[in-house]
């Protein structure tokens, strides 16, 4: 079985790389197309005629291209990560750390609150009927969109720095965890619960030996959603004017000054960060479920 999986994994590599190559190809063509207008205008103004190879090479090395070429973004990313001291304001590592710390703080708060409330909901019918409809309905509300407002309001009463962003991140990671955990804690069916009762196990024992273990697959599935949401929340929280630190602020300042390479680098830094965080949760998931014998 494991062997079969491994072969399937190997089998996917070639298609993924192919699709990636196609995307990069389209990207280069797009960069040439979208940046060509400016080069032609420049050339016309200078009264010179550009040959095609010249035009192509110029479109791929502009300072402020409409669409930076992949290698420019890679270079910007590399410059931002390795080309600066990590304490520098131009270092993506520094900005990334600002974003990451708020994300993790918020994620921890949101997850803890979600789990605690879920346990309460599973054990109290009044709480279940009061909170759950609102928790479910709140998933349809674009909470993220008001994140910048929260930052500004909190700043006006003197709360700045990591905390406001962490609050947004916590709020966004809270709901997936709550909904997933309630679902998970409820997976044991009547037969399993009756069996516990037949062994005259109390509420505590039923919780530790039945409900909690059966909820873990659901918990991890929602943790993956939650950490991605927390990161998005933090980045959006860094968007209001005045923010100077974090990947969101890099995006915003890039867009103010037309520094497209900076925007794309920040974007890819955020993507890499998101992928890493989700992957770490995924690894924890696999290790935990494997120890419990639940891994597929």
């Amino acid at each position, binding site marked *: 079985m494991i062997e079969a999986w491994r072969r399937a994994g190997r089998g996917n590599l070639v298609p*993924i790389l*192919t699709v990636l190559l196609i*995307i990069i190809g389209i990207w280069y063509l797009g960069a040439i197309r979208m940046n060509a207008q400016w080069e032609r205008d420049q050339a016309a103004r200078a009264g010179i005629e550009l040959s095609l190879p010249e035009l192509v090479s110029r479109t791929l090395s502009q300072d402020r291209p*409409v669409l930076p070429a992949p290698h420019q973004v890679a270079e910007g990313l590399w410059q931002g990560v390795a080309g600066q001291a990590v304490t520098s304001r131009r270092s993506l590592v520094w900005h990334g750390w600002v974003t990451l710390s708020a994300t993790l703080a918020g994620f921890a708060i949101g997850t803890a609150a979600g789990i605690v409330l879920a346990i309460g909901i599973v054990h109290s019918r009044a709480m279940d*009927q009061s909170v759950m409809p*609102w928790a479910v309905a709140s998933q349809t509300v674009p909470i993220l*969109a008001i994140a910048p407002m929260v930052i500004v309001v909190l700043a*006006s009463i003197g709360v700045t720095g990591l905390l406001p962003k962490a609050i947004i991140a916590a709020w966004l990671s809270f709901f997936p965890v709550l909904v997933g955990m309630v679902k998970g804690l409820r997976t044991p069916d009547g037969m399993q619960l009756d069996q516990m009762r037949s062994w005259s196990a109390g509420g505590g024992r039923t919780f530790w030996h039945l409900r909690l273990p059966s909820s873990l697959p659901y918990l991890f599935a929602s943790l993956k959603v939650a950490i991605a949401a927390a990161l998005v929340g933090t*980045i959006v929280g860094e968007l209001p004017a005045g923010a100077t630190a974090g990947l969101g602020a890099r995006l915003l300042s890039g867009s103010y000054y037309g520094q497209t390479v900076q925007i794309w680098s920040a974007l890819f830094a955020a993507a890499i960060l998101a992928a890493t965080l989700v992957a770490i949760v995924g690894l924890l998931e696999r290790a935990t479920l494997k120890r419990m014998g639940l891994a597929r």
Partner: protein
Amino acid sequence: MSAIPILGVWLAGLALNLWLARFDTRATRTAVALIFGATIILLWEMTVRIYQVPTVILPAPSLIAESVVANRSILWADFVQTILKGALSGWVIGAAAAVATAIAIDRSPFLQRGLLPIGNFVSALPIVGIAPILVMWFGFDWQSKAAVVVVMVFFPILVNMVAGLKATEPMQRDLMSSWAAPYWPALWKLRLPAAMPFLFNGLKITTTLALIGAIVAEFFGSPTRGMGFRISTAVGRLDLPLVWAEIVVAALAGTLFYGIVALIEKKVTFWHPSQRG
């Protein structure tokens, strides 16, 4: 001392709900949820009044309601700009593109194996971040917002649709094969209907994403209307009741959008076990 009425309301609401929850009928369950919501709003109002919380920090619900009524024409214009023009058009285009792509790569397992992991990966990324880029490309008006929404909703719907097209059992595909059904009738009569629950799952998740994309994109530049624009300028003027009024509209719009999609789902996938209830 001033905390006593607040505590009183809270305890009264709690006691009422604890009592009602024991009946556990459809009516009492709705009542419990409504009482909970009403209690929160009441507590909010009382707290703001008794402690004289500055409007800048937290306006009272009554003040927000007043602002909704007073600014209804502004709110409507913002709703049209952001929700109908930006979010809805982008969502429709993105969904159509995702479904078309899923069908286009349906006959190529190679492309599917390549595109699916990438789609799953992209779905977890902070895609709102492309908003500044797309605002640069498509200008300040709703077209750039729709473009952000297209990108945000495309991958979640694509991933769901591809999974849905795979969702038929081998036996049902064998049946089609035993009737020597050509590709298109089999797709049209078997696999598309079977994919509907998956498609609607994707459509429902992305309603919220569409609103978020449309609103957040306005923070990077917009004409002088739109919900994101209004929120950011009202915050600047410390007109918090108006900000909250926009939030109320956004919340209602989000719930309504989701509700309509869920209703269509109920009509289309009436046969699915989850809908038969």
